[in-house]
């Protein structure tokens, strides 16, 4: 596979959310505001890329029996480094992120890519796969949050789009809306992108 194919497979064809149905918990939890989704997405892109790269770098010395413990150790370490860096250098963004940094550790996409790709492939390929997977995840989060924030708050990235005539849909702010928007997104992608027939 070429580098371009690795990237596009990770981002679109094998998208972690709509194709592999991974990372659903965070996709449901953080998508009622677009800014939250973007911040979460950036954190995941960085951690995925760095964790994939490191796991690939030491793959030839890693014993099979401890590989998953090691993957968790590496992922958690990068997430904590991101947290410390933000607290020290970008305190306002760190405050916005709040508990999201911790949520990144529990995101099953990271373990999934570490096990399925990084532990078997070269360093550069793993880095590209990490970035592509992270971007694919972020795009889906932004799509869901666009619908939820627009109808739930009448705004996009905090900027008011609808006027005072608009009545916010409370259901869009709450978790159930993420379930049915995600289900509709998967249905649209299956029908028009993968051409899956009923």
């Amino acid at each position, binding site marked *: 596979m070429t580098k371009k194919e690795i990237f596009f497979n990770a981002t679109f064809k094998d998208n972690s959310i709509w194709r592999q149905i991974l990372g659903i918990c965070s996709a449901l939890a953080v998508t*009622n505001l677009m800014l939250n989704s973007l911040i979460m997405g950036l954190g995941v892109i960085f951690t995925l890329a760095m964790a994939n790269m490191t796991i690939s770098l030491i793959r030839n010395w890693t014993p*099979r029996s401890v590989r998953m413990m090691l993957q968790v150790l590496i992922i958690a370490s990068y997430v904590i480094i991101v947290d410390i860096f933000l607290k020290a250098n970008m305190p306002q963004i760190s405050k916005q992120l709040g508990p999201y940094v911790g949520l990144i550790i529990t995101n099953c996409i990271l373990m999934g890519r570490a096990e399925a790709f990084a532990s078997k492939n070269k360093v550069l390929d793993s880095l590209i796969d990490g970035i592509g997977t992270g971007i694919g995840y972020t795009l889906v989060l932004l799509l869901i949050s666009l619908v939820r924030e627009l109808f739930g708050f009448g705004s996009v990235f905090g900027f008011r789009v609808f006027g005072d005539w608009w009545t916010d849909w409370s259901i869009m702010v709450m978790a159930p809306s993420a379930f049915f928007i995600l289900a509709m997104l998967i249905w649209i992608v299956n029908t028009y992108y993968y051409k899956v027939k009923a």
Partner: protein
Amino acid sequence: MKDSFLYPIIFMLIMVVLFSGILAVTYRFSEAKIQDYQTDSYQKMILSTLATKIAEITQQNPQDIMAAYPKSFEQYIYQLNPQGFEREVYQAVVDEEVVAYSFEIKGKGLWGTMRALVSTTPDFRTILDFNIVSQQETPGLGARIEEEWFLSQFRDRIFVVNPESEDDVTQSYEFISEAQTPENDRQLKRVTGATITSDSVIKMLRAEFNYIYSYVRSNEL
């Protein structure tokens, strides 16, 4: 060699030491910066809860008082350490007269402890300002208690209506939905989708005002 008994143990030990070391070094280099920022932002928050009152008496603009931090903090704010009082408390003093108090209060939210700063008039009856220091509520739902529209509902509100009561000195409140307009001063707007968190804020305020009153009834701050 990778299949031997000792190799995985030694390998894992090396990795744990390596990554713990990286984390320790990263934290060590950032520790001072993080603590400075936390101290500054906490002191600024204390000052902001008292700035309006100080500005009113000194005939200044509250923004000018905030802009003059840390000088204005040193000039007007004093920390008190009353014996047996288990909360942090600060007083704003202008011309040797106490014009307001600011208390750090705590309460249980949906997912964890909430910390807030509440400033009051010297008789501890009216809330001058209210701000959340930290909370662990659901992002986008309960965490919206930090939004200005929610916090501003508590400003200039007479919160203590029965100062002599030993059971409950506070006013009771009724929550209405975010889209509604309060019809009287006993109605407050709750955060949509965060009923428990909204209730927790009121519970925290009521419990803490009762605690403050139980102390000041027999002691001086």
